[in-house]
């Protein structure tokens, strides 16, 4: 490689890296926790999925009680399930039967959250099939949801900058793209030395080589993983960039057509018939039929169109049992009037190219195709990404601490690195502390988590920015984070009675896993802290940054 190219790779890698590092750290850190989203939700709400796994979901019971409460006639009802939970998001439209709709127009209520607005007396809430209770989205908001949404910056969408798309998602997409760019430049930069330096790691030599080695060694080892995340991440969060021009080139600008073609939506219309269905409505039987047809699939969505009308249809969507098929998604539409299947795409037999590509993107990003072993490996690789980012910041700073660099520039470099380090590293203690807070406080909702997490984060960051000591930032946040993580299972035991041995005995492995996970994280944290301290003693007088 000639010198010119090398230096260009170097410079573009540095600039794109320093540009995105802080946000990318947030994405990686929150995203790594999100592998355990369902476990976190089970943990926080004390409702284990695993210990009720065999329980049959009674859709008819929910629909009957909804019918009594709201009169479902003429409404569309959509139930959206998440794997390994008993929670479902219920989305109910206003009735299409104009004879039932009250003449006086009810005041359009503005609803916050996820930007959905329902017309008339439509409802949107979360229902739990085990506890048989319903909560609004805000009430049911938990740490699993919070960290999951934080990892694509959903909370930033509330920043009042209107560009035509969600602000947070746009930033997340841009960061993911620059991350991809930084990965490519980083690989090119290191290309000549990939083989010879693969095992070079000199942790106990001088500060600069520690960070450089950590950055390149972990970067190269984690490269395939991070590359997958960069690409799938952009696709999942900001594919509009790509879809929009193709909509104009291939589909004359008709976006509903392209979404239909890509199986993202189904534009079928069901015209309301204004005549009552005579037979008894048994939605459950359609689900059971589908289950039998598709060999125990995961039912992801159940949609009922025009409830109680002759035009009533039941749509069941699901994915194949992962033991059978990696990538199948299926949809079946039943016409209730004559009990006929009017459309079917099985998730087992006719898997299309679209299905395959989509599944690869989803499965690889969510890491949900191989049980806990895979999730743990993914989590470790995710945290390795965090280490690569932090060491990248430090390489950047340490490499510029030379006499040849003017003092004001060095001052600025330190100022920037100090802020980045404080903001990034504070995430660990704040996240762990919030987990304890949601256990201590019995009434937790979205507002509580927002306030506790974001103000806590601000306080910690402000403190470490003010301290202006990178070594302290590093060591103290690791220590505090580990202490709080250690207390997570204790808080679960004291406030919910779910001590690890109890959840083990009850077979609530999803709750137990999160406690064990926090415990291991704490132990690793303590060990790193101990190592850092040991190293301090060894090379006194201390280097400015270690």
């Amino acid at each position: 490689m000639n010198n010119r190219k090398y230096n260009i790779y170097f410079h573009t890698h540095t600039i794109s890296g320093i540009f995105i590092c802080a946000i990318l750290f947030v994405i990686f850190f929150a995203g790594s926790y999100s592998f355990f989203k369902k476990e976190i939700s089970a943990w926080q709400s004390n409702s284990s999925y695993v210990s009720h796994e065999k329980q049959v979901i009674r859709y008819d019971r929910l629909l009957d009680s909804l019918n009594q409460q709201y009169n479902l006639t003429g409404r569309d009802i959509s139930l959206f399930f998440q794997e390994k939970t008993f929670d479902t998001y219920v989305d109910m439209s206003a009735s299409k039967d104009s004879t039932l709709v009250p003449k006086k127009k009810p005041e359009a209520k503005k609803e916050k959250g996820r930007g959905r607005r329902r017309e008339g007396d439509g409802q949107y809430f979360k229902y739990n099939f085990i506890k048989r209770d319903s909560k609004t989205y805000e009430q049911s908001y938990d740490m699993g949801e919070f960290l999951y949404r934080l990892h694509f910056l959903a909370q930033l969408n509330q920043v009042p900058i209107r560009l035509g798309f969600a602000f947070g998602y746009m930033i997340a997409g841009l960061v993911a793209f620059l991350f991809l760019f930084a990965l490519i430049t980083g690989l090119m930069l290191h290309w000549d030395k990939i083989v010879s330096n693969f095992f070079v790691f000199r942790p106990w030599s001088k500060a600069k080589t520690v960070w450089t080695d950590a950055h390149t060694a972990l970067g190269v080892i984690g490269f395939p993983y991070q590359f997958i995340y960069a690409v799938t991440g952009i696709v999942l969060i900001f594919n509009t960039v790509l879809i929009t021009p193709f909509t104009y080139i291939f589909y004359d600008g008709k976006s509903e057509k392209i979404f239909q073609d890509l199986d993202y939506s189904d534009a079928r219309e069901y015209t309301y018939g204004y005549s009552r269905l005579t037979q008894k409505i048994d939605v459950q039987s359609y689900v059971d039929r589908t289950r039998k047809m598709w060999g125990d699939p995961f039912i992801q969505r159940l949609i009922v169109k025009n409830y109680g009308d002759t035009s009533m249809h039941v749509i069941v969507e699901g994915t194949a049992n992962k033991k059978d098929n990696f990538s199948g998604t299926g949809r079946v539409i039943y016409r209730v009037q004559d009990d006929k299947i009017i459309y079917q795409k099985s998730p087992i037999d006719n898997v299309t190219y679209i299905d395959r590509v989509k599944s690869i993107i989803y499965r690889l990003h969510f890491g949900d195709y191989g049980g806990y072993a895979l999730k743990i490996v993914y989590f470790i690789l995710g945290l390795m990404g965090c280490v690569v980012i932090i060491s990248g910041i430090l390489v950047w700073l340490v490499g510029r601490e030379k006499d040849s660099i003017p003092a004001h520039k060095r001052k600025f470099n330190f100022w920037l690195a100090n802020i980045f380090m404080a903001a990034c590293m504070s995430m660990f203690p704040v996240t762990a502390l919030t987990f304890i807070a949601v256990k201590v406080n019995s009434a937790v909702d979205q507002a509580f988590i927002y306030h506790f997490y974001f103000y806590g984060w601000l306080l910690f960051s402000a403190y470490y920015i003010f301290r202006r000591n990178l070594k302290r930032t590093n060591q103290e946040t690791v220590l505090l984070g580990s202490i709080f993580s250690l207390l997570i299972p204790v808080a679960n035991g004291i406030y919910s009675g779910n001590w690890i041995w109890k959840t083990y005995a009850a077979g609530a492995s999803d709750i137990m896993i999160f406690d064990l996970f926090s415990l291991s994280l704490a132990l690793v944290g303590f060990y790193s802290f101990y190592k850092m301290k040991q190293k301090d003693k060894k090379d006194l007088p201390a280097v400015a940054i270690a």
Partner: protein
Amino acid sequence: MPANKKYLTKSPFQRFLKITAGFIGGYCVMISFHQLFGYVFEPKLVVMTAAITGYILWAVLLLFAFLAEKAWKIWLLYIVLTLLFSLPILLKL
């Protein structure tokens, strides 16, 4: 340790041209290149594949712009390529 300045673009205007060439020009080349496949394969398959290959190609084209000696040359190259790839559309084929 920072990159040797000798090899980097000094003029801010040149740098601006390179960044825009890579970002905007690279994007146009990527889209126009992928839509060509729509003449051979079903459009929906092309769109789905582009979800993966498109972003990688775009990132590589962005890097390629920085490697160029002269900014106007890379702009010219990307414009010519875009026009070339979209010839079928321009000629209404």
